[in-house]
Structures are given as C-alpha cells and as structure tokens.
C-alpha cells in the first residue's frame, strides 16, 4: 500500500524524523484555514500517489491568504497523470540550503534491505545513478537487528554530506530504519532531504510503501487506504473477496489461480482479443463465488463475451458449473459465455452444464480453443 506524502510524514513524525509543520485539508476553506494557522509563506501540495506533482503544477508557494485560496482552488480536483487530487497538504515553507537524498528499500533479489544516500537530492535519483554513480552510496543492511549507528555514519560520510550535519543525517537514517522495521515498510524514500539555513536536517518529501501482508498488524495505516481512488468495480469485487483488476478491453475473463489467469489474458491477447479484466477466482471456489464473479464481470458495460478458464486442482469443476447455472438464474447474462472446464470432476461439471442447456453458453475443451472462440464471439475491438 502506497502512502500519500502527508501520511508518510505523519508516520515519520511519530518516530521522531524531522518533518516541516503541516496540516491536511480536503476543501478550499480548510486549506485557507490551515494556511492561516501555519503562517506565510507556506506551500500548497497536491496529495496523490504518483510523482511529478511539481511539474504538473500541483505544488505551489503561497505568500498570503489570497494566494493560498487561489492555489487550493486550482489544485483540488486537478488531474495529475490520471490521479484526481482529493487531498492537500499545507506545509510551512522551508529555508533550503542544500538538497540531499536518502532511502531504504527492500531488495528482494538480495533479500536484504538496501540503504541509499547521495548528496545530489531534489532530482531523479536514477539520473544520479546513471551519470554519477560514485555519488550514490548503496549499502545493504546486514539482516538481523536494527541498523548499526556506525554503518549509518559511514554511509552518510561516504556520500560526502557536510561535516556539520553528518550526525543529524545519520540519525535520520537510523530513524528511517526504525520506521521500516516497526511499520513494515518496503520502501521509504526522502527526496529531497534538506539542510536548512539553520543547519537543521528535515524530510521535505516522503514516499512510503507499506507491505500489504502486514496491514493486519497496522490497523491505523490500513484505515488510510484511499477508497475514493479505487475503481468501483474493483471495490465491489474486493468486498466479495475476489481478486479483480479492471482493464480496457471487451473480453471478460475468469480463471482459478493468478498464474493461470495471467496466462489466460496472454492467450486471449495472442488470439487477437482485448481482455476486459483479470479475475482470479482462487482455489476451492464454491458456486457462490462464481455468482459473485459473474456479477462483477457483467457490470462492466464494455464486456461483449466472457471466458471461464478452469483447471481444477482443489477447485472442483462441478462447483464451478453449479455456480454458472445459479448465476444465470439470478442475473441476466446478456453476452456469450465460453467455458472450459478441465481437471477435478470435469465429467460431473460438463454434465451439469449439458443438463442446464443454457442459451449463449459455449463449451470448449482446450485453453487455446476457448481463447479463440471467445475472441470470435466478442466481435471487433472494444
């Protein structure tokens, strides 16, 4: 789960990482009130889970109430790379002397946490990696307990951070390590990490990703999930316990198992079709789950044909077949349905479908055959 900037900063503050004073606002009036409270100059910042806010005009300095109001009006509701701005963070403006960079990220390849620090902050760190790799200090943290203070100091020194703030930056790195370990973050990135004119060290931006598998032990973070940013069909599916991702095409898809589902999407695309969604019905799906799944898929107006690709291991084909029959009684399935049932209880499942004799239902033996059939039935491009 990606945290918005202000959520990350609030997490940092909880752990003693220095952040500028700020207030959250979701309306123009609240934004103005916040700006007045914080004082001027302050910065009006769009809160969206994507980078490039500044370039899009989503970060503006306000020197008085009139500007605060104007910026809030312009930025709230703005579209930044497909994300609509619902939240603002009004922040005290900082006196910037220097901009650096620090991050801790889970390196899944090495199975260790990686700390990265560079003097060259306030720019895309990939650029630093490409043009001046020696300036980017990358060190894996030995697995075990917390980051060693000596390690932190050495990384910061090697990054060429000014002598008088080495201790403060090292301290911040240790605190970031603490945030990672106690809050189950797989990424914490501060860019820029600024040195103020008073020679204080402050996290001016925050990017943080929390491990979804760990949200059960961080209920206050789980609550921050931005439900308004979710697609309504995806939200509906999630409530029914289905893993569903909406895509752009017209071929609705269901499979049992994430790998098989991804493979089904690929095979449909290869047959010239455009998948409308990814939907993993999961192992051991019962009839009810199939009814729910069909409800979600048929709620997408773009869908002109549906493919069920089932290879039952633990999942039983007769359960899937029952679900299809029940669904056709409960909801109107106006589009053709191609069903491929293979694996456990295949015979029983096919018998149930044959008995029900549903109009619009086409049975195929193989995965490739089913993909070709559904593309044919879906008709042209969506």
């Amino acid at each position: 789960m990606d945290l918005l900037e202000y959520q990350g900063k609030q997490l940092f503050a909880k752990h003693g990482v220095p952040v500028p004073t700020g207030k959250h606002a979701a309306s123009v009036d609240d934004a103005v009130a916040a700006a007045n409270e914080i004082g001027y100059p302050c910065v009006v910042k769009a809160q969206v889970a994507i980078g490039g806010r500044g370039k899009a005009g989503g970060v503006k300095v306000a020197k008085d109430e009139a500007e605060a109001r104007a910026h809030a009006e312009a930025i709230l509701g703005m579209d930044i790379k497909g994300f609509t701005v619902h939240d603002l963070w009004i922040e005290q403006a900082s006196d910037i002397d220097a901009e650096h960079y620090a991050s801790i990220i889970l390196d899944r390849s090495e199975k260790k946490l990686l700390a990265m620090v560079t003097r060259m902050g306030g720019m895309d760190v990939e650029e630093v990696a490409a043009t001046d790799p020696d300036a980017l200090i990358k060190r894996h943290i030995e697995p075990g307990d917390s980051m060693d203070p000596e390690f932190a100091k050495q990384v910061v020194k090697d990054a060429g951070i000014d002598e008088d703030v080495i201790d403060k930056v090292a301290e911040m790195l240790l605190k970031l390590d603490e945030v990672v370990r106690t809050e189950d973050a797989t990424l914490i990135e501060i860019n820029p990490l600024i040195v103020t004119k008073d020679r204080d060290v402050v996290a001016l931006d925050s990017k943080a990703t929390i491990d979804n598998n760990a949200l059960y032990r961080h209920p206050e973070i789980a609550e921050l999930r931005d439900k308004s940013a979710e697609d309504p069909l995806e939200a509906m599916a999630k409530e029914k316990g289905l893993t569903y991702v909406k895509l752009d095409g017209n071929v609705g898809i269901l499979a049992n198992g994430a790998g098989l589902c991804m493979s089904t999407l690929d095979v449909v695309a290869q047959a010239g079709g455009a998948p409308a969604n990814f939907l993993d019905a999961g192992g051991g799906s019962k009839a009810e789950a199939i009814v729910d799944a069909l409800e979600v898929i048929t709620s997408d107006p773009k869908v002109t044909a549906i493919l069920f690709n089932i290879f039952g291991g633990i999942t039983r084909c007769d359960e899937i077949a029952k679900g299809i029959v029940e669904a056709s009684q409960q909801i109107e399935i106006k589009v053709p349905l191609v069903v491929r049932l293979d694996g456990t209880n295949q015979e029983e499942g096919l018998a149930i479908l044959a008995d029900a004799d549903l109009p619009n239902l086409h049975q195929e033996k193989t995965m490739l055959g089913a993909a070709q059939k559904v593309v044919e039935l879906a008709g042209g491009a969506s």
Partner: protein
Amino acid sequence: MSIIVGEDTKLVVSGLTGREGTFHGLRNRDYGTDVVAGVTPGKGGQDVDGIPVFDTIKEAVDERGANTSMIFVPARFAAAAIEEAIDAGIETVIAITEGIPVLDMMRVYWKAKEKGVRLVGPNCPGVLSPGKANVGIIPAQFFDKGPIGVVSKSGTLTYQIGNELKQAGMGNSSIVGIGGDPIVGSDFIDILKLYEADDETEMIVMVGEIGGDAEERAADFIAESISKPVVAYIAGFTAPPGKQMGHAGAIISGSSGTAQAKKEALEAKGVRVGQSPTETAQIAVEVMKSLG
C-alpha cells in the same frame, strides 16, 4: 532420485488440526507420503485419523523422527512456525501459507540459510515427486512419473502444463512450487541446482511470471552451470505494469520485471520460451524426444 520430497520424507504438518491442514495432510498420506505427526499448540495428545498431534515440532522430531515440515498455519503465525521448525532440527520446510509479511520472511530466510535448512515457499502449492511423496496441495492425479523436472512460481498454471505433458506421455521427476512472494526460501536457481544433480531428471521446465528478476538471474545461471535442457514459460505479458512509487526501485532491480524482459533474458541464454502453456509442453516433448 527426485528432489526435496520422496521415500525418505517423514512429514510433520503444522496446522494438521485445522480444516485445510487436515484435508491436505490426509490427502498427502493417501498418496503415500509418510505423515508421521501433526502440530497444534494446545492439542498435543489428540490425533487426526490416527496421526498423532503434538504441541511442538520438537516433540514430533524427537518422538516420530520427523525430518520435513509442512506449514499450514495462518499468515500471522506462519513465520514463527517456520522458525520453530528450523530450531527443532527439521531439514526441509515447505510453507504453503499465503500472506506472510515480507520482513518476517526476510528474517526467516536468513535463519534457514544459516542453519542449512531447505525452505520452500511461502505462498506455494508445495512439492510433488510422482510415485513417491506429495507434500502440499498439488493435485497428483495430473502428473505421471517421468524425466522432466518442473519448477514454477504458480499453482494452477503448473497443473495445466503438467497435465499437457502427461497427455503427451511425458512425466515428471518432481514438481516444485517455489511460490510467488517477493522473498521465497528457494529461488529458481536453488531448484535448478538440485535438478542438475538429480539422476532421474533429464530436462527442466521452468514457469515464471512478472515481478522481480529471478528468471533473469536463472538465465545467467543456466548458461554457466546447467547442462540439462531447459524450456520455459512466462505469464503476464498482458498484465498492466505496476506503477512505481519513488525512484529507488528503478535503481536496484536489474530488470524491469516485465514478462518481455524475462523472455528475452532466457532466450538470450538458449532457453526456449513457449508462447502458451500448451506450446511450452509441446516444446518440452520435442526436446525429450530429441534426447533419444
């Protein structure tokens, strides 16, 4: 020989008394796996269809000679159960559980490595050695015994391919589900090493998917250290690319993590990559036939 599980496996199931643990534990036993014990704290002294249940894995090791552990406990307790197995002297731990926090797995991974314990998973269907033993949820009826070793990140997709191989008259030495989580106990490389050393395995089928760079690193390893033919399938060409938070991620990954990048990396090292599960099975059959 087969790998990881076989005739010498003495299995203790952590979570045997739970609904899933019971269903799959008994299924494994019916297949012929030597299921010697179950563990559920607080239920020591009970039994599940004659299989004795203990409070701790150590007791299962001491009293029943367990050497392999299957972890079927809920995600919030699973990492601790894996660590318990390692501490108890278990040699092979197969973790089926989905949803274990990744930082827990990072800790557990290094502990297993330090103690020389083989860890497979988590979030995996387990390991099947046809004709010998099944530890996990792989439906054994779709696989025959034979010379092809399978290693896969996925579950049902693997069954699809296995079934196609079976229908073509080809069987498997073992089928290993390594799982799809970011940190897994055994990577493709770990399993490829085992297949290379296994006298029953003549070729290998590798099933990967988007995310991370395990397939790319495996490609390099295959070129350097694997003499047996390898055929691969990669799922996820049509999956939408994940959006990236921050830029740190772009620095560490040696690859973009896309299916296309994985396919290219494998083909560059002489691994044939099938376009679909069906084609992959066909290529494997072709290769087996050419081995004579």
